[in-house]
C-alpha cells in the first residue's frame, strides 16, 4: 500500500464537508428519545440529594443524622464535607458546598431526609466584595496575580545606578505627557455561572470491582483516572459513558467530589446511584467564571493610536483568590508601551473553572471599552479608532484580516447609516440608539484523537472514538468525514462516541473537538480506503492511484463503467472486517487542521433612558475558522455564542449578599438569562476567502463567545454618551450611570 497523504477534498468535490448538514441526532433530541445522564434510571437505583452549606464561611461542628435515618425509604446518610462524630470541625469556604448526602428510594424521600438533618455550624466572617479592592486590601484578602511592563526600545534602558521601577514610572509618565489624548476609566464584569441546564452529576453502579459511570461530562476518555485516584482503584476498572450531555461550557471535565461520593454510596449500599445537583446547587457549585474590574489609563497620539497603556485589574476566582489572567491586557490590541498589573481577591465562593474561552470575554469587555472611550473623548468614529489601532496588535499578521472583517461587519450592520458621535444620536421619546464593536482572537488547535474504523465484508461501516458531543454536532461531523471520504451516504456509516471503552479522544475544551475528530476520522477513512483500493485495483487490474470512491462505488477515474459497488468492493476484504485505528496527537504538524482565528462583532442597541432597559436591535458576527466543516452547526455555534454574550452583557450575574456572603440569586427565576424575545436580529458571516479553506479545520466554539460583551457595552455608551462601567448592564446600573453623569 502506498503511503497515505492526508488531505481534504477540493471544494468542488465535497459533497458533505462545508455544506449544510442536519445533525444526525436532532430527532432524538427533539422528541425526548436522547437519553442524558439525568434520564438514565437503573434498576433498583437509589436517588441521592445532598445538603448544601447555607453559609459562605463557617465551620461545620457536627451532624445529627438520626432523624433523617428514621425516614422510611432513606437508605443511607453519607458525610461528604462534614466531620464524623469526634472529628475536628470542617471549614467551609463557599455557600452551597455539599456537606451530607441522603440516599433514598425516591427524590422526594431524599429531600425529606435532608430536611431532618441537624447540623451545627460556627459562623465565620465572610468576604465577597470582589469589586472593592480597598476593602479587600483592608481585610487582607488580596493576592498578587502577575503583571509586567514593556516599553519601546527607542526609550532606551535604565542606567546601572537607576532604580528600575522609578525609571519605568518616569518613562510611563513622560509618555502620558506626550499623548494628545489621555483616557482614564474603570470597567468591570461580574462573575457568572455556567448554569448548565443538565446539572452536574452521574448515574452509576459497581459491577463487581468495576465502576460503571454514566457521567454528564466533556471528558469521556479521561475522567476514569479522577475516579481511580480518589477511590484507590486503577483507571482500567472505571468505564465512563456519556451519549448526550446537557451543557458543559468548560465546567464538566472531572468526576467532582459529589461524583466520588456517588461511587462511595453505591459501594456502601450495593445499589446503583443517581446523584445530580439541584438547580440551586448547579448555580452555586457547578462552575463559575471569574470577575474582572480594572483601572485603566491610556494615552494616544493625534490620530487616536494608543501609544501607552497602564492598567491594574482585580477580581475573584473564589477562595483560591486568582483573577482574569493578565496576559491578555489590553485584549487583541498591543500598544508599543504597556504596563499591567493584576490582583486576585480571595472571596468566600467556589473556585472558578474554565468558561468558554477562559479569560478572553472578560479581558475583551474591560479593555476594548477603554478604546471606545478614546473614540468618545476624541468625538471620533469608533470604527475608525478600532481600524487605526490595528497597527499595534499582538498578532500583527492578523491586522489585515481584522480590517477586512471590520469592513464586512460595518456593511452588515449598516454602520455608516446608523453611526452618530457618542451621545449625539436622535432621541425618540426616552429611547436612544447606538453602535459598538469588539474584536477577538482564539487558538482552536485540534486535540488528540484516535479513531477505530471497521469496514465489514458486507459493506457495513462503523467507527469508535471516545469523544463527546456537547451540542456542537461532533457526532454528525464524524459521520460527515467518514461518508465524504468513503463516498457513501451519511446514513451508511454508524458512528459510536461517548464511551471511555473506545479509543482515546481529548476532552472538549478550548475549541478542540471538531478539529480532533476531523483529524482522526479523516485519517482512519483515508487509510482504510487505501487498503480497499489495493484490493479493488487487483480485481479491476488498474493502478490503485487511479481509483476514487464516490456515490457508493469505487471506480476508475474517468471510466465510470470500470467500477465496483461499495458492497462488491468490501466483499474482497475476506472474512474478517478491515480495521484501522488512526492516531492523531495534538500539536502534530498536519495538513488537516491548524489554529488561530480572528473575529469581530458589532451591536446596535436601544436604551431607554427613563427605565435603563437596554434592548438588542441587531448583532453581527464576522468569523474566520479555516475550513468550514458543517455550515449549519457552525452557524448555530455562532448564534449561540452571540446569545451567551448578550446574557453576560445584559442579564446574568452572581449576586452575593454583602453581609452573609450568601449567593442569593441561585435559581432561574432570579439568575436572569435572556429569553427568545431578548435577542434582536442576529447576523452571522463566515469570513472564508480561499486562503481560509487551505488552513484546514480550526475550532469554533470559543471565539464567537468573546467580543459581544464589549460590542454591547460600547453600543450603550455610544447611545447614551455615558459609560456604564460594569457588565451586566442592568437597568439599575444604566440609570445610576446616567444620574452620575448628570451630576
Amino acid at each position: 500500500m502506498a503511503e497515505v497523504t492526508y488531505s481534504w477534498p477540493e471544494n468542488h468535490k465535497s459533497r458533505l464537508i462545508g455544506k449544510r448538514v442536519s445533525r444526525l441526532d436532532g430527532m432524538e433530541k427533539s422528541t425526548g428519545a436522547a437519553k442524558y445522564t439525568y434520564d438514565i434510571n437503573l434498576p433498583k437505583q437509589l436517588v441521592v440529594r445532598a445538603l448544601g452549606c447555607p453559609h459562605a464561611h463557617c465551620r461545620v461542628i457536627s451532624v445529627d443524622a438520626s432523624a433523617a435515618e428514621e425516614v422510611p425509604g432513606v437508605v443511607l446518610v453519607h458525610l461528604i464535607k462534614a466531620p464524623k462524630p469526634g472529628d475536628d470541625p470542617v471549614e467551609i469556604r463557599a455557600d452551597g458546598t455539599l456537606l451530607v448526602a441522603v440516599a433514598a428510594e425516591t427524590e422526594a424521600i431524599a429531600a425529606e431526609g435532608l430536611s431532618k438533618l441537624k447540623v451545627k455550624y460556627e459562623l465565620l466572617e465572610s468576604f465577597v466584595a470582589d469589586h472593592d479592592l480597598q476593602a479587600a486590601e483592608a481585610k487582607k484578602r488580596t493576592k498578587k496575580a502577575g503583571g509586567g511592563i514593556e516599553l519601546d526600545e527607542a526609550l532606551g534602558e535604565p542606567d546601572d545606578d537607576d532604580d528600575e521601577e522609578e525609571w519605568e514610572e518616569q518613562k510611563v509618565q513622560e509618555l502620558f505627557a506626550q499623548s494628545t489624548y489621555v483616557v482614564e476609566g474603570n470597567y468591570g464584569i461580574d462573575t457568572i455561572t455556567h448554569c448548565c441546564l443538565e446539572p452536574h452529576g452521574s448515574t452509576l453502579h459497581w459491577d463487581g470491582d468495576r465502576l460503571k459511570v454514566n457521567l454528564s461530562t466533556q471528558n469521556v476518555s479521561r475522567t476514569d483516572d479522577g475516579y481511580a485516584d480518589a477511590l484507590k482503584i486503577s483507571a482500567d476498572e472505571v468505564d465512563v459513558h456519556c451519549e448526550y450531555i446537557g451543557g458543559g461550557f468548560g465546567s464538566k471535565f472531572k468526576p467532582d467530589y459529589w461524583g466520588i461520593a456517588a461511587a462511595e454510596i453505591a459501594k456502601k449500599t450495593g445499589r446503583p446511584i443517581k446523584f445530580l445537583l439541584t438547580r440551586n446547587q448547579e448555580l452555586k457549585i457547578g462552575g463559575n467564571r471569574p470577575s474582572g474590574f480594572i483601572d485603566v489609563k491610556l494615552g494616544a497620539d493625534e490620530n487616536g493610536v494608543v501609544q501607552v497603556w497602564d492598567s491594574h485589574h482585580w477580581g475573584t476566582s473564589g477562595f483560591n483568590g486568582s483573577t482574569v489572567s493578565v496576559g491578555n491586557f489590553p485584549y487583541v490590541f498591543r500598544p508599543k508601551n504597556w504596563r499591567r498589573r493584576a490582583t486576585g481577591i480571595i472571596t468566600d465562593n467556589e473556585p472558578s473553572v474554565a468558561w468558554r474561552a477562559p479569560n478572553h470575554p472578560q479581558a475583551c469587555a474591560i479593555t476594548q471599552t477603554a478604546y471606545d472611550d478614546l473614540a468618545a473623548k476624541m468625538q471620533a468614529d469608533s470604527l475608525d479608532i478600532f481600524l487605526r489601532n490595528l497597527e499595534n496588535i499582538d498578532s500583527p499578521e492578523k491586522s489585515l484580516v481584522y480590517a477586512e472583517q471590520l469592513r464586512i461587519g460595518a456593511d452588515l450592520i449598516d454602520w455608516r447609516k446608523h453611526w452618530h458621535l457618542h451621545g449625539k444620536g436622535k432621541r425618540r421619546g426616552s429611547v436612544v440608539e447606538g453602535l459598538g464593536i469588539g474584536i477577538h482572537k482564539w487558538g482552536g488547535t485540534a486535540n488528540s484523537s484516535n479513531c477505530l474504523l471497521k469496514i465489514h465484508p458486507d459493506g457495513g461501516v462503523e467507527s469508535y472514538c471516545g469523544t463527546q458531543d456537547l451540542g456542537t454536532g461532533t457526532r454528525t461531523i464524524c459521520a460527515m468525514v467518514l461518508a465524504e471520504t468513503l463516498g457513501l451516504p451519511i446514513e451508511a456509516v454508524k458512528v459510536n462516541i461517548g464511551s471511555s471503552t473506545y479509543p482515546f479522544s481529548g476532552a472538549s475544551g478550548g475549541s478542540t473537538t471538531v478539529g480532533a475528530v476531523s483529524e482522526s476520522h479523516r485519517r482512519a477513512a483515508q487509510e482504510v480506503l487505501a487498503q480497499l483500493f489495493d484490493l479493488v485495483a487487483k480485481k479491476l487490474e488498474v493502478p490503485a492511484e487511479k481509483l476514487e470512491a464516490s456515490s457508493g462505488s469505487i471506480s476508475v477515474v474517468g471510466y465510470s463503467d470500470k467500477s465496483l459497488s461499495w458492497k462488491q468492493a468490501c466483499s474482497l476484504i475476506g472474512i474478517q472486517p478491515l480495521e484501522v485505528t488512526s492516531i492523531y496527537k495534538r500539536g502534530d504538524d498536519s495538513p488537516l487542521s491548524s489554529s488561530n482565528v480572528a473575529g469581530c462583532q458589532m451591536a446596535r442597541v436601544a436604551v431607554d433612558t427613563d427605565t435603563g432597559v437596554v434592548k438588542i436591535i441587531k448583532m453581527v458576527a464576522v468569523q474566520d475558522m479555516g475550513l468550514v466543516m458543517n455550515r449549519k452547526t457552525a452557524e448555530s455555534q455562532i448564534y449561540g455564542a452571540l446569545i451567551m454574550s448578550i446574557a453576560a452583557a445584559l442579564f446574568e450575574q452572581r449576586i452575593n449578599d454583602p453581609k452573609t456572603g450568601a449567593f442569593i440569586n441561585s435559581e432561574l427565576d432570579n439568575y436572569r438569562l435572556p429569553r427568545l424575545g431578548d435577542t434582536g436580529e442576529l447576523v452571522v458571516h463566515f469570513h472564508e476567502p480561499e486562503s481560509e479553506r487551505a488552513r484546514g479545520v480550526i475550532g469554533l466554539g470559543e471565539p464567537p463567545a468573546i467580543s459581544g460583551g464589549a460590542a454591547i457595552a460600547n453600543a450603550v455608551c455610544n447611545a447614551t454618551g455615558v459609560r456604564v462601567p460594569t457588565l451586566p448592564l442592568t437597568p439599575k446600573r444604566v440609570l445610576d450611570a446616567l444620574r452620575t453623569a448628570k451630576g
Partner: protein
Amino acid sequence: MNCHAQERGGSHSDARKLSTCLNLIPDSYTFIPADWGSCCAHLFHRLEPDGFIMSQQSSQGVSRRGFLKGSGAAVAVSTVVSSTEAEAAAPGLQVVNGETSITIKVNGKSLTAKVEPRTTLLDVLRYQFDLTGAKPVSLDGSSGASTVLVGGKAVMASTTLALAVAGKEVTTCESLGGDAVPSAFVEHDAQQCGFCTPGFVVAVRAFLNKYPNATEEQIRAGLNGNICRCGTYANILQAVISLVKGN
C-alpha cells in the same frame, strides 16, 4: 425577574411582553424593565402546610414546595376518589393521604401510577413511565424544560401535582415524532446540547395551536417561558417562522 406562565401562548410576564420587540414600539414609548417588581406573585407564596387541600381551580396558583413536607401530607382534588383515607374537606372535594394509585392518559395510553400527595407529574413521567423528555431543570418552572400538554394546554410538569392530572390527558414530546415541530427543529438546527429542546418543542406546539398564523413579533413575544443556555433562540425563531409559513 423571570416569571413563568402556566399556560403558554402568552409570554411569561406582561411587562416583558410589552417591551419585547422594538419594532412594535412607537417613538415615544417607554420600556418597562422586565426585572423590576414581581409580576408572578404566586411563585413567592411558599405555602408550607403538612397537608394540603386543593381545588382544581386553584391548582395552578400554588407552589409545589408545600407538598414536599412529608409523605403523610394530604391533598384534596375534585377528580380523585381516594381509596385510602378520604375525608370531605369541602363540598365536592376529597382528601387524599399517603400513597394512592391513579390513572393518567399519557400520549393516548392509560397508565397507572403510584403517587403521594407530593408527587409531581414530572416525577411520574420520568421515574414511573420512563418518559424522560420533560426535563428537571428548575423545579419552580422558570425554565420551561418540563413543559407538557395537559388537556391540550401547556403546563410545567415540575409544578403540576400528579394527583391534579388523574384521569386527564397528558401529551409529552415523545408523542410528537410525526409532528411538524420536531422536523422543523432539526431542519433549522434549533438545538445544541438539546436539554431544553423537548420543552421548547412542546411549547412551540401549544403556541402554534393557539396562534397558527403568528407574526415574527408575536413569536418573539410569545415563547419566553423557556430557557436555552446554549443559545438556540435564533434557530428556534427560524423554525417557528417556517412552521407558520408551512401552514
